[in-house]
């Protein structure tokens, strides 16, 4: 039933200090149609005065360059505890089964083409990206958001590190299950730009981690104009691993699928970190 009578005898007023119910008086009534009984002031309500509607704040470029992007984090044991408590939610997600050897050989042929194109001018800047992205660093995620090198976004950076750390473990478990060999073990003519990581190929952890960061950020601030661009950045990072010769296209796609399906679990595991990050933006 719709009770419009509630509006007749009560009202919210927006004041400079917050939202006030019935002129600051608690409405402690059994029947709201009647009386406004006096009581204590309910609360001073924090209303967000954010007016930027998706624009970044003007942050000072005064951060210690060594902090954050290169510093890493302490082991996120609290979040890992939560993750393990929710194991049933992520251990058996319906990732497509890996390709057969025949399919992998076809995929590896595509990687040979990429290897050849890597030397051409339009693709030459990938090499620098690949080398930079080989290790854990955040510039690929922070730059699309416009906060690389800015102070005031430490919680956002920490969230990204936590997501990367947790999804690393998850990805390793799926890799171990499917036990797919690396591309140059299928196609010896491949000359990877990087040494093979010491674990299996499917799914790609770079893909899983990058897309997880992008999906989680889009849950925090979907209206940010860069939410979609962060997805493009994640895809670029993921596909660069194909250009490096260490992952098949199917690895990238499986990482994407797994990241998408994991987000409902991760948003609960990382809720505290996500809220801390959100506070830096609104």
């Amino acid at each position, binding site marked *: 039933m719709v009770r419009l009578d509630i*509006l007749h005898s009560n009202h919210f007023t927006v004041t400079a200090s917050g939202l006030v119910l019935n002129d600051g008086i608690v409405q402690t009534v059994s029947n709201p149609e009647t009386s406004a009984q006096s009581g204590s002031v309910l609360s001073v309500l*924090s209303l967000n005065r954010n007016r930027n*509607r998706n624009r970044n704040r003007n942050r000072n470029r005064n951060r210690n360059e060594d902090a954050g992007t290169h510093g890493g984090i302490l082991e996120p044991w609290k979040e890992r505890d939560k993750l393990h408590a929710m194991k049933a939610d992520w251990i058996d*997600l319906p990732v497509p089964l890996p390709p057969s050897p025949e399919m992998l050989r076809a995929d590896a042929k595509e990687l040979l083409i990429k290897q050849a194109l890597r030397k051409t001018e339009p693709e030459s800047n990938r090499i620098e990206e690949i080398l930079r992205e080989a290790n854990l660093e955040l510039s690929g995620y922070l730059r699309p958001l416009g906060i690389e090198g800015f102070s005031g976004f430490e919680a956002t950076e920490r969230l990204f590190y936590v997501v990367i750390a947790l999804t690393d473990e998850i990805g390793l478990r799926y890799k171990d299950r499917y036990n797919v060999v690396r591309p140059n073990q299928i196609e010896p003519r491949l000359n990877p730009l990087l040494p093979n990581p010491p674990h299996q190929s499917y799914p790609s952890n770079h893909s899983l981690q990058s897309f997880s960061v992008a999906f989680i950020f*889009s849950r925090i601030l979907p209206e940010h104009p860069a939410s979609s661009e962060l997805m493009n950045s994640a895809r670029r990072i993921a596909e660069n691993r194909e250009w490096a010769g260490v992952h098949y296209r199917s690895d990238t796609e499986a990482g994407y699928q797994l990241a998408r399906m994991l987000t409902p679990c991760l948003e609960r595991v990382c809720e505290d970190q996500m809220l801390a990050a959100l506070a830096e933006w609104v």
Partner: protein
Amino acid sequence: MNIENPLPASETYPSYDALWHLKTLGVLAADSAPNGWSVERCDPPTRVAIIDTSVAVEHPNLVGVVNRDLSLDLFSARLGSFSCFMDGKQPIGNLPLEWETDISDGLPHARRLLTEFVDRLSIGSTAHYRGIKPCVSPTFSTHGTCVAGLVGARPSIAAQVDITGHISQLPLPYMGVDPTCEIVQISTNFDPHPESLLLAFLYAHLIKADLILLPRAIPDPSRIVPELTDVMVGQQDLQQATRRVPLKPEEKEMWTELAQLIVAVSKQCPVICAAGNANEENAIYPANLATDHNGIISVGAINAKGYRSSYSSPESATVFAPSNDAEVFDRVEVRLDEMRPDYDAVGVPDTNSNHKFSSFDVIATDVPGRGGYSSSPFQQEYPDMRLREFGSYFCRFGGTSAAAALVCGFLSLAISTGRLVKSDGLVAKAWLLANSHLISSDTGDMMMPSWTGTPEFPDGPQTVCRVGAI
């Protein structure tokens, strides 16, 4: 900032009614009574499909508003998991869908998806697609909760626990434009891939929505404004030359089909879109698809003084609706908040639009607790919907998202009260324009929906704003 001579007006923000936007639209009278309509619910209720983020369905002002059987999440599962089903293995019932639709005729990718989708939605399928949970934590459902509340929130009585542990009844005198409507939330992720949005519009059509609200942009790489395909750099157009990830031919075809599908759907039911918050000349996509020949309604924002909100382009909107304002300091306009404590008049041109700035925001329902735009000081709310505070349940909101939600609610109320017969998008748009008022200003004319014919703006002065019925 001049510390020695603080501005006398500093921080003297006026207080205002949290439902001012409903009174400006004429839906509520000055005493908050319905303005010439009653709450007798039409049966079935007007169905509004909102394509946005997830929504906090347990918000006390949204209880009974969101359809828990039909709301679908397309964020995590490709073909969707039903948002409100706790048991993912529970079979869905016999959904009353538009099974025999021809909406995808001529759209091969959409048709392929529709075939898969119809199979997934058929009786006996599980609530969670392939066991994948929906991505709908209320903590991170802010935008969807704000928008849903503006459309269809209902006044409610909640239980509140005070510091002595005493439980009392707490009125929450807040409502959306149409408190009798039913909202089906269709949540998607923000991956710039067309599939989820194709499915979202197909689903809105399948459930026979009376209205579709899209309070966001769609990241179609070819249609993000400004479009780049008309500028050549060497042998490539600028869009191709600057893309970080190549666009696959199939994706390009699907994006094109999405645009065609939105237009086709809009001819059957109105699609209300936000026009954009950055003065986009011809609105963001897909609001910029609005023409006289389809049912897409592009909505801009007007502030509580009756001026176009500084961020809302004068050319881009079919109609304008109440929202907040923003400061601007550029060659086109200088509109600054002189009440801001650090306001500095140095460098501000003598000829400015500061008088047009309004500090009023639109108040919306917010995610209860720590999440959302307004945060609770408590780590956890009490169980059983007992409130510890109500500050986190509402927030300041604005932009053309808010304005679009209000226009959607306005149309919904018109259908619910019988002023507008359920109709196709073109008829509904024509009705909306016929029930709007022309507001003229030095930056152009605006049409604003008005329930009564006499828009009133609470932040004045209204004399600069000439209002007249058309």
